[in-house]
């Protein structure tokens, strides 16, 4: 039996992406990024400011829904996690729909804050557990938020990495391409190539994604699980058998 669940590996891998940062925010329907931010905060000795959308206790804002975005616009927010119905090789993200606009084949919830935060948050970490050609496509059907911008467009932020259920990609903004950085235990490069709909660069020997340490696992299952259960009771119950 494995020492940790795949979900716990993802939490630790995402937490590493935001290590050392001062202010990290988590958006809608993001229990795994939420757990990662809470883990990173615990590991920082509570030096990191974390805001979890929908949380009362893990959310410092007092000026309403606008405050997160106003913070970001001023450069006060260092990192944000973002998902995607579709993500392509240029890190364009689609959270709206697939198919014809008036009668789409699939309708996703909507763009949320992506069309703004992707531009002004220095480190946006893309996360989508499903790593398949359905999600990682050659070209998104609708650009909720573009991965790269032309020169002259105000852009102080953008994608830094993409973490999936199989691997970690880093994003090279100058080249507008992903590079396979590390592969999760139990997965391999051939499988990742087969399941990815876009071309990407690859290190000659991509590393294995670092597993969570015993100390990280203890934090994830203890403090982090308890903190997360306030906002994501079903996820916490399913993952750690934990009530809110």
């Amino acid at each position, binding site marked *: 039996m494995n020492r940790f669940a795949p979900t716990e590996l993802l939490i630790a891998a995402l937490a590493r992406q935001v290590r050392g940062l001062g202010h990290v925010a988590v958006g809608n329907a993001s229990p795994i990024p939420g757990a990662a931010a809470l883990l990173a905060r615990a590991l920082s000795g509570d030096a990191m400011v974390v805001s979890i959308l929908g949380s009362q206790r893990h959310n410092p804002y007092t000026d309403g829904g606008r405050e997160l*975005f106003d913070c970001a616009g001023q450069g006060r927010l260092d990192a944000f996690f973002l998902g995607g119905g579709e993500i392509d090789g240029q890190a364009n993200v689609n959270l709206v729909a697939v198919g014809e606009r008036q009668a789409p084949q699939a309708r996703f919830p*909507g763009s949320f804050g992506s*069309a*703004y935060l992707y531009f002004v948050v220095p480190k946006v970490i893309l996360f989508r557990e499903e790593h398949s050609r359905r999600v990682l496509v050659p070209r998104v059907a609708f650009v*909720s938020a573009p991965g790269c911008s032309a020169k002259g467009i105000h852009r102080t932020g953008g994608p830094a990495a993409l973490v999936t259920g199989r691997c970690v990609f880093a994003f090279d903004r100058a080249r507008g391409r992903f590079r396979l950085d590390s592969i999760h235990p139990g997965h391999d490069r051939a499988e990742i190539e087969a399941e990815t709909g876009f071309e990407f660069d690859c290190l000659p020997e991509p590393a294995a994604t670092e597993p969570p340490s015993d100390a990280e696992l203890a934090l994830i299952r203890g403090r982090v699980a308890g903190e997360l259960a306030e906002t994501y009771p079903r996820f916490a119950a399913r993952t750690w058998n934990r009530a809110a």
Partner: protein
Amino acid sequence: MVTWIDIDAMAARIPDGTRLAVPADYSGVAMAATRALIARGARGLRLVTVPTSGMQADLLVGAGAVAEIETAGVTLGEHGLAPRFSAAAKAGRVDIRDATCPAIHAGLQAAEKGVPFMPLRGLIGSDLLAVRSDWHIIGNPFAGGALETGDDPIVLLPAIRPDVALFHARWADRSGNVWIGRRRELATMAHAAATTLVTVEERYDGDLLADETMAAGTLPALYVGAVAVAERGAWPLALPGAYAADDGEIARYAAAARTEPGFADYLAGTPRRAA
């Protein structure tokens, strides 16, 4: 003077075709009033979600009450996609005006200032601009270039002026001052809307503006048209600080609303008031 009415009278104050602003699930959603609105057979609502919605928008869309929805996202959160919203989108039954969270906040802020538009960073290169013909790009006039061709392009968003803002809160006092705590987007919504209708858990015994501690979190009655008492009025959603969401009930809805007959059965079998 604010009038105290019941929730059926409140639903009657939201006529067909109203541009109706409603808050996100974390702010206090007037679910009892929403059921009253569906019961009165509301049609043609132009919903503005501030900035997102969940079961409330899904119920209203499923019941055929919505002609147009301006939103940054509709989702049932841990319970998955909003099934009636998705079905209506695929069938092209509702005009979806896709937005992004800060664009909705900014549009309301323009309205509360009485100015016609607000600039917002980001957006350029997003297909949202292609589907929002009411959003415009100009050159930043303070950057030195021409308005049409300036070096620093920025998007302008029109003010969002709802006819009615509708939400649920913990307390209102006799005069109609409403305690909203730190949920300041409720104040923004109310400032921007022509009038605001509020359901509350209970009437506050005293003057909310007389106590500095309470006044800091209070929306003054000058924005409020009417108040109705609806105990557990956000059910099955949460009222932050007062009660949690009824997870089992939302799960029951999410399962039922997967199909149109299931949704109809759910509507017919759900009590108007919280259990």
